[in-house]
């Protein structure tokens, strides 16, 4: 093998191993892994299973909230959420029908809401504004209407 070839192969290996190590450090040491909840739920009985029998917002601390949310074609329940600036919000979500997505535009909040599974994610809103919340997985003919807002005051 040519010397340049060896250098290039070494650089390639270092790149791949380096990326792997960085992602591992971020995921396990800094707790920045993607949402990977293992909790399941019967998708046909969401309405009668706690906590989704009572979707809504609960204040659980100083500027700390818990939102129990169901997603269904083509809406979020509850919708039009409002929190004070600097709030930390814990979302607990599931789907009542097909696969949905939930994304808060302008943040890194991006999750798949799959029927049968519960997804938990936490987001801190440090700045005031009207955040757009959209379903970003195709869920039917009204998919483009499935949106709401989170207003931070």
């Amino acid at each position: 093998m040519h010397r340049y070839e060896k250098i290039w192969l070494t650089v390639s290996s270092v790149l791949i191993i380096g990326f792997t190590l960085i992602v591992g450090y971020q995921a396990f040491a800094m707790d920045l892994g993607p949402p990977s909840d293992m909790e399941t739920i019967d998708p046909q009985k969401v309405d009668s299973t706690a906590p989704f029998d009572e979707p809504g917002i609960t204040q659980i601390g100083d500027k700390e909230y818990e939102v129990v949310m169901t997603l269904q074609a083509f809406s979020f329940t509850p919708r039009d959420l409002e929190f004070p600036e600097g709030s930390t919000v814990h979302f607990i979500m599931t789907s009542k029908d097909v696969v949905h997505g939930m994304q808060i535009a302008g943040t890194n909040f991006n999750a798949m809401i799959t029927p049968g599974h519960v997804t938990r994610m936490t987001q801190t809103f440090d700045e005031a504004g009207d955040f757009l919340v959209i379903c970003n997985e195709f869920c039917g003919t009204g998919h483009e209407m499935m949106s709401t807002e989170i207003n931070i005051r």
Partner: protein
Amino acid sequence: MTNQQTIEGIPQTEKGHVKDRLKKFMGVQRKDATLAKAYMIVSFVSLLLGALLGLVQGLNRAGLFELPYWFNYYQVLTSHGLLLVLIFTSFFMIGYFYAGISNTLDGLSNGVRKLGWSAFWTKIAGALLAVSQVLIGEATVLYTFYPPMAASVWFYLGLTLIVLGIWQSCFGVFISAAKWRKANKGQRLPILAFFAVGGFVLLFFSSLFVAAEVLFMIIPWTLGWVETINVMVARTLFWAFGHTLVNIWYLTAVSAWYVITPKIIDGPRFSDTLTRVVVVLLVVLNIPGGFHHQIVDPGISEPIKYMHVYMSLVIGFPSLMTAYAMFYIFEKSGRKKGAKGLFGWFKKLPWKDARFLALFIAMASFIVGGAGGIAQTMHQLNQVVHNSLWVVGHFHVTLGMTAAMTFFGVSYWLIPHISGRQLTPKMNRFAWWTTIVWAIGISIMSLVMHYVGLLGAPRRTAFTEYMGNATASSWDPYLLLIAGGATIMTIGIIMQVYTVFHLMFRAPKGEEEFPIGEAEEGNAIKLPYWTERWSVWILLMWATIAMAYVVPLVEMMINGAPGSPPQRTW
């Protein structure tokens, strides 16, 4: 044909040789060429249809064009995906590799040719069945058809027929290769046929996963034989196929880079052994790559996802080797033509040759596409771009530029080759401009998609103002740019399809070469045979698949979520 005139006046000894070649061309290989032509016609017709649907989406999304209720955005999108992802690419791949096998393995046998035709008609029937269901509004489920959305059972039967056709085409390749090996004991399979075997091995084994999803899960469920479906298992089986499929087109494109480019630029091929190593690595490592489509899915634990970050990243390794190989052959060819200095070779490349330019832009765009792919395999970056227009930009760079532009570059010599015609200098110029127009259009569209996706604009979404939200309206200028790029692309596609049909039916008759580069090592040295042990590579491939899939799939089945009944939300 001017065969008679060509033979007259040639010395007796050469006459026999020419007669042989003519016989080959008029007889067996002529029949093979007809088969390849049929595949190319379907491929480029579906490219035209798919591209027009793409334009409709671009215009609709920017708010410039309203779609009727009986053919809504999602029906357009489903058809666009099916035509371009399943039909255009696979028909091109089969036509190209069958022509390549006919050329390098002394013609297709009668049995294999029949298999090729049977595959052709099975796939056509499947495609018509599947697309008809989309058109009548019974299958608005996009080409990923994620359960629990349930289309009509005919849609899935159409997909099944497509897969059956794919299997037949795979067997045709395997039989041809086995036959040749038996007749040429101890010799390496000619390089283009080696690539074909790699591509079809991947196609065969990855399609087993989607066949399992459709046959054992979805069809019994849509027929009501079982009440519910395991959504996560279905998604996982789909992506084991879905992502591999894109890598199969990439492998098809790469075969032209390694084998065809050297001949066109008058340089040597890259090391024959290392080329084969690249193919083998792509085959062995590929199928687990689908998992990174599920990085933000629930129901898969973090350690499993982390293992898959590595298993997806490592597929980049053979591609990094390819990057080296391409610059290597460029430099070799340039220096052979007297290039001086560190970068002098760059000027010596045949820039005016459309066959080269299309391939070069395809390779260059893979630097962007490959980097984007690496970004998506990583947890946090994936979470930022997941399901946004960024992803759409990414696969238009990789499929629309890297794969499709290579296919265009190949069509400029393959179509006249199988049609007994020539690429004239005038058509070469036209093809050159086609390449430029297409490259400009798709670059604008894809780069803007990447950017607006980062801002949060979602993929797979019809025109919407999200109730006048300010963030959503800030995306509007970018959506207009995307529509502009799509318009330029459409002009490029019309030019390309015109080129293909001109070269097939109108160009002057003659012989166009099937350009296959010479091995750098030459034919003098006997090369080691270990690269040809396909049974070993397939075994290693299954070991990789087992490592990737056994634990998460068992977890999804044993501790999986209660199933979902069929849903129709369109």
